[in-house]
């Protein structure tokens, strides 16, 4: 698979996996207004995923459309970052995972709007607006939980500590990133590390939460080496199309 296809799949798969996770929460929120809100974020992310996957399929030129890519690849063929496949957990975990992702995504998409690949730039432009809103929402909730009650503070702190080791991967480049940056299609992920850390530290401080200490950073999702969680997620998501592979739905 070309670096170009790989690269596009990474963004698409991350959006897809997170969208899938959030979609499972609808009808189970702490208050019904949040069901509507979470559904909106999930719908935005599915929309982004479809744009990325559709484009990846075109670039690949092997006749795979968005559904072929979403429903007929195994876990090892997925290129999402590990962060988004971490389970929903409680509302604090969902919020913190969302915040870490939204902040990264917002910064990454900002870089991609400068891509020489005009399709990528266009997808990034559209997605960035949506993501700016997601970020506003998740940051607000991060602060409410951190600076809310003793219980919400403890839950938010635990979520931040548990998810922190999955943030490092967001900024780790590999050969694909180098190649894409060289061609002006992509960017060096290292470039968003400092802006991400700066804003995350500020938000955590506002939320009266401690910034988790340095730890080993898990990685591998971008190269297809995932956590156990992804297999279950895909098993559920893909069960129907795989049961009747020739069917049109």
């Amino acid at each position, binding site marked *: 698979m070309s670096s170009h296809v790989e690269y596009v799949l990474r963004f698409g798969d991350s959006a897809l996996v997170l969208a*899938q996770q959030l*979609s*499972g929460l*609808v*009808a*189970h*929120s*702490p*208050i*019904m*207004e949040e*069901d*509507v809100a979470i*559904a*909106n974020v*999930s*719908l935005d992310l*599915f*929309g982004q*995923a*479809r744009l990325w*996957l559709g484009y990846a399929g075109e670039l690949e030129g092997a006749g795979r459309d*968005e*559904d072929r890519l*979403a*429903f007929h690849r195994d876990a090892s063929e997925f290129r999402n970052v590990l962060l988004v496949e971490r389970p929903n957990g*409680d*509302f604090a975990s969902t919020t913190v995972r969302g915040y870490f992702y939204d902040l990264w995504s917002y910064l990454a998409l900002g870089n991609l709007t400068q891509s020489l690949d005009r399709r990528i730039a266009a997808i990034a432009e559209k997605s960035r607006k949506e993501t700016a809103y997601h970020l506003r929402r998740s940051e607000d909730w991060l*602060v*409410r*939980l951190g*600076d*809310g*009650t003793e*219980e*919400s503070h403890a*839950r938010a702190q635990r979520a931040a500590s548990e998810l922190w080791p999955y943030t490092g991967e967001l900024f780790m480049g590999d050969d694909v990133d180098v190649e894409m940056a060289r061609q002006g299609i992509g960017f060096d992920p290292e470039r968003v590390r400092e802006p991400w850390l700066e804003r995350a530290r500020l938000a955590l401080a506002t939320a009266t939460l401690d910034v988790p200490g340095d730890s080993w950073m898990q990685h591998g999702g971008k190269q297809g080496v995932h956590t156990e969680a992804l297999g279950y997620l895909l098993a*559920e*998501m893909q*069960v*129907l*199309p795989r049961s*009747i592979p*020739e*069917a*049109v*739905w």
Partner: protein
Amino acid sequence: MYTQMSDGIDGQPNASDERERAFERRLERGVKIEPPDWMPEPYRKTLVRQISQHAHSEIVGMLPEGNWITRAPSLQRKVILLAKVQDEAGHGLYLYSAAETLGTPRDDMIAALHAGKAKYSSIFNYATLTWADVGAIGWLVDGAAIINQIPLTRCSYGPYARGMVRICKEESFHQRQGFDIMWKLAHGTPAQHAMAQDALDRWWWPAVMMFGPPDAESTHNRQSLKWKIKIFTNDELRQKFIDQTVPQAERLGLKIPDEQLRWNERTQHYEFGPIDWEEFYRVIRGDGPCNKDRLQARIDAWEEGAWVREAAAAYARKQAERGAVA
């Protein structure tokens, strides 16, 4: 939406009251009743019960379809279903908002639901076993709901009528997407076709029952009609539903599970077989396949979310205090 017309009337109006007569004259003139207006207590109570029951139905109704969001077979189907279930949450909220104008806080209505004191449409106590059930719900259940709801846009209580206008407008795609799922399945592989027929077999009668007990048994029809909380009777609406759905099933190439179903040229209506009201009352009493699961899912969401609601309230209080100091 999924209002189920099994509503009772709370108490009897006292027609000797002058305000009562003014109220009735107003209804006769077709002037809407608005929240702060005087209204007879039975009218208020009946409305609160009907609207909240309707709201609960939207919220509980998210569950059977919500089941399938994570398993929808294409990305397009997934976003359609997600948007539909999201609408149901929205419609529940519009309705709670309308009911709250009558002076009952939403949390009280939710408490009544969780305590098993409030009803919701019993159609949602049936299980969604296959993807075709999502199609059948959209086509039949939303189809029945639309027939129930459209007249309610003209009901006498302003906030409810306005809520219904919005809901009807937004739901116009719900039935169509369901029919579209059924169409694809009915014209798909033999396995898909069988899935569609199976769903129709299981959902047909529960959908027909959604209009509530027959007029002869529905003692409350009359008062609700007089108050313009209801515009047509249960049986009138049921007939309309059957008349418009049978030809759709024929176009799909699916068979409605009713051996006695036939067109009556003289009445220009379909005749249909006997409805199993035993089943209807059994499911309402709590012995449907999913009554306990549905309610438990709502209770779990509410209870597990308590700390979140408390956190946000606590933060808002702190912010208000900080603002007051600064």
